[in-house]
């Protein structure tokens, strides 16, 4: 059964609808109070002087696999015969256009692809992929290129196949909320489009201004609203994928319930471009809430944070839509690096919690929230807090949480880890890391930030048991690398946790997969890979731990 297709395009899906209305000039000219919700977009500059080291040089053990053919002019001629526009095939004679596709968002990895393909239809993707498969040309599927584990850029000269030109919304059912769209649609654009119809995307992440839904699905992106709307494993109803043999297959159907056959799409969700290329997605979208409330709280201990969470689940219950936490250092870094940040309250506490509620009835939600906040204060669970009184204040509070990533990047030498452990142990991972680095003289536990590792911080999706452990340093160095890994993975293993809660494996975490998964499991993964991509042309060097041990 084919995915529904409307004739022609749905207009306006590319232009993000403007927020707010015309304001008197004095208001519009002074954005400090009324700053819109920040979502970072990928800023691309290809200045050779600041380019990161080539991945191939940094990881010399990842030798270029000789079974892959090198690119020739005949190959490029073929590509141009499939994608008939000049802009759709970017070759090495246009380095300024080509280079951004070779570098990841963190500016940590740089590949050496000589060509970027930007097809417009699934048929073009199929023709290209089939050719690459037959000629043993390695391919890296790329979406918004905002991934944090180096999975979206080449290691050597793999061809980059970008989905960015496949960005049309195919259909939307206003009764069921099922949206079908091309894989290259930007998440924020989709959300704005749905907003006009009273719906919203079921996921939200800091990269929403640049990330694409195909990439989100391929990496099983989590984000800020997983707590309320669940993971993509639940909200994606079907997808259109292109396999290396050139077949375009629809996995599942855009239906809420369908128990006919193996649920193959689940394999592709989180497969990080190693099984096939996702070209379209059907996703169940929830109604946009009428009432949104955001509050920020100051808590003295991590046990206190867990108490707040218990209260939130009990008293806010079904209207709770996000529960994030961050430590004091994160707030300080945000205040230091991000202009126009305002602290909602002045009491300094070791931990901060950001809570959001979404509901269809403002009075109902306000009442629940009032009871919740009052209990927290009277029982002394929180030291202080603030409740946003309008959208601008709500955006301001979210901005603090969402700009932590940017602030850490600006500090430099930023090591990023994303893990899951049972909630009670979430912050102890941070403390154990601080202890470890202090013991080898790299970190000062007294907070002076004078060690070569300046800060060790924790923040994240507390409600999902997901910690983003980050370290900032004077620069990436082998001894710092070795002090952190595999020690960190051993702690996670000890707690029975996941070495990558939502960021995925990519290049960075693939070698450590065995800390979270058994040999038998990894064997089965390899079997699946050989079913879909027997020649191994899709996203090589990643996802799987190296075979030789």
């Amino acid at each position, binding site marked *: 059964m084919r995915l529904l297709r409307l004739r022609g395009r749905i*207009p*306006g899906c*590319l*232009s993000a*609808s*403007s*927020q*707010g*209305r*015309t*304001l*008197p000039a*004095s*208001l519009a000219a*002074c954005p*400090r*109070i*009324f700053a*819109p919700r920040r979502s970072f977009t990928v800023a691309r500059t290809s200045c050779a002087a600041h380019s990161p080291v080539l991945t191939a040089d940094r990881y010399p053990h990842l030798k270029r696999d000789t079974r892959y053919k090198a690119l020739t002019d005949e190959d490029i001629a073929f590509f141009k015969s499939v994608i008939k*526009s*000049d*802009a*759709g095939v970017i070759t090495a004679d246009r380095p300024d256009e080509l280079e951004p596709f070779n570098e990841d968002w963190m500016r940590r990895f740089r590949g050496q692809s000589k060509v970027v393909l930007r097809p417009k239809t699934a048929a073009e993707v199929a023709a290209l992929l089939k050719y690459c498969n037959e000629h043993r040309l390695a391919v890296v599927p790329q979406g918004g290129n905002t991934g944090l584990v180096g999975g979206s850029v080449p290691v050597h000269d793999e061809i980059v196949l970008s989905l960015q030109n496949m960005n049309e919304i195919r259909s939307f059912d206003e009764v069921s909320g099922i949206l079908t769209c091309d894989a290259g649609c930007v998440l924020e654009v989709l959300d704005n489009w749905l907003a006009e119809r009273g719906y919203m995307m079921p996921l939200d992440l800091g990269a929403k201004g640049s990330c694409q839904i195909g990439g989100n699905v391929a990496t099983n992106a989590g984000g800020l609203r997983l707590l309320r709307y669940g993971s993509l494993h639940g909200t994606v109803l079907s997808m259109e994928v292109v396999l290396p043999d050139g077949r375009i297959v629809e996995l599942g159907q855009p239906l809420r319930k369908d128990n006919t056959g193996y649920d193959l799409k689940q394999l592709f969700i989180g497969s990080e471009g190693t099984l096939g290329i996702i070209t379209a997605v059907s996703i169940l979208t929830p109604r946009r809430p*009428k*009432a*949104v409330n955001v509050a920020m*709280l100051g808590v003295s201990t991590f046990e206190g944070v867990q108490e707040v969470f218990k209260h939130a689940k009990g008293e806010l219950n079904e209207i709770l839509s996000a529960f994030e936490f961050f430590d004091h250092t994160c707030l300080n870094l945000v205040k230091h690096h991000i202009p126009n940040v*305002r602290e*909602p*309250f002045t009491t300094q506490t070791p931990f901060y919690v950001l809570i959001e509620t979404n509901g269809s009835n*403002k009075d109902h939600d*306000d009442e629940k929230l009032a009871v919740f*906040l*009052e209990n*927290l*204060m009277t029982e002394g669970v*929180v030291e*202080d*807090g*603030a*409740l*946003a*009184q*309008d*959208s*601008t*204040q709500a*955006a301001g509070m979210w901005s603090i949480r969402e700009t932590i990533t940017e602030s850490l990047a600006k500090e430099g030498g930023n090591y990023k880890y994303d893990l899951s452990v049972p909630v009670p142990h979430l912050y102890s991972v941070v403390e154990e890391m601080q202890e470890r680095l202090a013991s080898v003289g790299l970190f000062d536990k007294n907070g002076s930030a004078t060690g070569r590792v300046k800060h060790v911080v924790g923040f994240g999706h507390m409600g999902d048991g997901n910690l983003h452990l980050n370290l900032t340093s004077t620069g990436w160095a082998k001894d710092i690398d070795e002090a952190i890994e595999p020690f960190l993975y051993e702690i996670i293993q000890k707690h029975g946790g996941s070495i990558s809660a939502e960021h995925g494996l990519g290049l960075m975490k693939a070698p450590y997969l065995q800390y979270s998964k058994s040999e038998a499991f990894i064997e089965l993964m390899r079997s699946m890979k050989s079913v879909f991509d027997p020649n191994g042309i899709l996203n090589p060097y990643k996802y799987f731990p190296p075979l030789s041990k």
Partner: protein
Amino acid sequence: MSLNRVLVPVKRVVDYAVKIRVAGGKVDTNVKHSMNPFDEIAIEEAVRLKEKKLAKEVIALTVGPSKSNETLRTALAMGADRGVHIEVPEGSEVLPLQVAKLIKAVAEKEKPELLLLGKQAIDDDSSQTGQMLAGLLGWPQATFASKVEVAGDKLTVTREVDGGLETIASKLPAVVTTDLRLNEPRYATLPNIMKAKKKKVEKLTPKDLGVDVTPTIETVKVIEPPKRAGGIKVESVDELLSKLKNEARVL
């Protein structure tokens, strides 16, 4: 030497971040509402005066349906001492002149030395209430204030005007309307939200104050601005240049 009372009228408006839609010839008001941003600035300024011990009491006042009560709660949570809610039926429109008359009536009862208003509401953008109020009361007015200083019964206000900044001095009582750069309003913190629950809100009707709020202006038509024609995406720089040259004719 401090003022006894500062009276701050506040208005419940469609939230700043909401995209306004027109449905059935009227603005769709089934959306998020919050306090008019300029009124938040006025409350903030009044509370700061109190904190500097230049004023003893801050009274927040609103004219609106029962839901406007929430706006008063915000003002109280920001530090106002008590509220006055002049309630009108849901859906009824009270225009600036009538609002000014209502505020005048309350001011004559409460006798504040300073009336702090937002310079305009972001729904009607009238920028009239403060000025009309001063006229009705016969008080001096300092509008578009970006700085307010009070010393005894002397008021010094820096105003934002087209040519730059203008500083004027006047005696109290006076009417001041706030502009954007006056201050950054505080967040409502939990301890203050809890205190606000105990603060008094007096309910009145226009009839109690002897003011006729029948609109003296009739809204004839409400329409959205014409939709922006969609842009197009070009495939390459060459195509861009060609279009700029041959179609837009700007090269």
